[in-house]
């Protein structure tokens, strides 16, 4: 299979990519690792007139601490997010999500920025990044803005990015002491994509009660959704197995998943309650044992 013909240019800097993007308009697509875009082009689901390759722009790769934030360059591949000591120690839920995307080869090539910008409703990063209250740095000719994950994923394969912006960095607040993060996923057995997944950030007081909780679910809508009933069910409560189970039971109460050949809507809603519970339990355990 071949993509339809297109023009190609490798940008040497973000500024150059932005100039090219402005000149080419909506006809152009940005290329990072290409592991969402190239398959779509081969299937002729996408036929951009021009690809602007960001792949060789220096400085958009890697994980670093920036004050109280973990900053991840948009071109960082999934395998490097999964293997990063910083990520594993400070945000193990993010490392878990990165480590279950696709397969070894896909993780060696696909990028976090590409996954976020593509906004596949069955992708892993949007879910955990929503749970972690991440934000996305968008650069354009007129400056830079930062959009929170809650406002970023607007619809199926659609984000708050305009056609004239480049996603350069993913910023994840480092959670306070007593926090735990986790991500669990029911993958489709053939494709590995999310059937249902749950990402959690929970912060526990020394007394054992829940100071705050964010629970995001994948596979139930056009993008990640917050399980607000579950979050409310945890807030301020003692994080006992009973409280967690009762809160998780509300995970899918506002969800209206689409039925597909693999899973019915009812099944997805049920799995969401189970996976929300497992993710909360794992996050709480980490909050207890890794009180840093």
């Amino acid at each position: 299979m071949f993509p339809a013909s297109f023009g190609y240019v490798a940008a040497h800097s973000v500024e150059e990519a932005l100039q090219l993007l402005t000149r080419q308009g909506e006809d152009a697509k940005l290329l990072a690792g290409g592991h969402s875009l190239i398959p779509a082009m081969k299937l002729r689901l996408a036929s951009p007139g021009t690809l602007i390759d960001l792949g060789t722009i220096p400085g958009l790769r890697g994980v670093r601490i920036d004050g109280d934030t973990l900053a991840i360059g948009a071109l960082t591949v999934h395998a490097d997010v999964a293997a990063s000591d910083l990520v594993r120690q400070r945000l193990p839920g993010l490392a878990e999500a990165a480590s279950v995307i696709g397969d070894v080869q896909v993780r060696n090539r696909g990028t976090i920025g590409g996954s976020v910008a593509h906004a596949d409703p069955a992708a892993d990063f949007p879910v955990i990044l929503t749970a972690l209250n991440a934000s996305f740095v968008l650069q354009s000719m007129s400056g830079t803005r930062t959009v929170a994950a809650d406002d970023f994923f607007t619809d199926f394969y659609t984000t708050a990015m305009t056609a004239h912006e480049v996603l350069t960095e993913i910023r994840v607040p480092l959670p306070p002491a007593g926090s735990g993060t986790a991500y669990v996923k029911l993958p489709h057995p053939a494709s590995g994509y999310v059937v249902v997944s749950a990402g959690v950030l929970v912060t526990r007081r020394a007394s054992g009660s829940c100071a705050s909780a964010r629970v995001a679910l994948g596979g139930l809508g056009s993008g990640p959704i917050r399980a607000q009933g579950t979050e409310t069910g945890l807030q301020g409560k003692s994080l006992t197995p009973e409280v967690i189970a009762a809160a998780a039971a509300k995970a899918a109460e506002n969800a209206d998943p689409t039925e597909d050949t693999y899973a019915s809507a009812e099944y997805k809603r049920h799995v969401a309650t189970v996976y929300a519970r497992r993710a909360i339990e794992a996050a709480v355990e980490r909050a207890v044992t890794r009180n840093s």
Partner: protein
Amino acid sequence: MAAEIEFAAIPIEVTVNGQKHQATVEPRTLLIYFLREHLGLTGTHVGCDTSQCGACTIQLNGRAVKSCTILAVQANRAEITTIEGLARDGALHPVQEGFREKHGLQCGYCTPGMIMTGVSLLEENPNPTEAEIRHALEGNLCRCTGYVNIVESIRWAAEKMGGKNVSR
């Protein structure tokens, strides 16, 4: 002034199995077809052509990737190793030997990809458990052997290599 957009022929320079190649390619040329049809390296196979089966696995700058989902232009200035580049001076790579010793193939179609992934695994983890081997092979599909002998082949190679990191 921004760089120019090119539609027809893009010059690339790629080092494949230690040998430098210069070529001009159409932007839509996939790396797998560049390797097979431009360079004649047909050891790397096109299987599903949808980045699932792993038959097209090569090493790009030392990492196992699926060459059906990479444009040749994206490999500009990269170092590539294909199945043809594993044997040295007529001696098979231990992973290749392992597939022979442990009967790790039947039809052989998936084998180049399996071996490339196996080689990458042993470079990162010279002494993998069976579970780790199976996990590493999740992106490589075999429709004949049922994986038992493939896992044994890689395990055999790990033992032959003495559990040492012999990144080449």
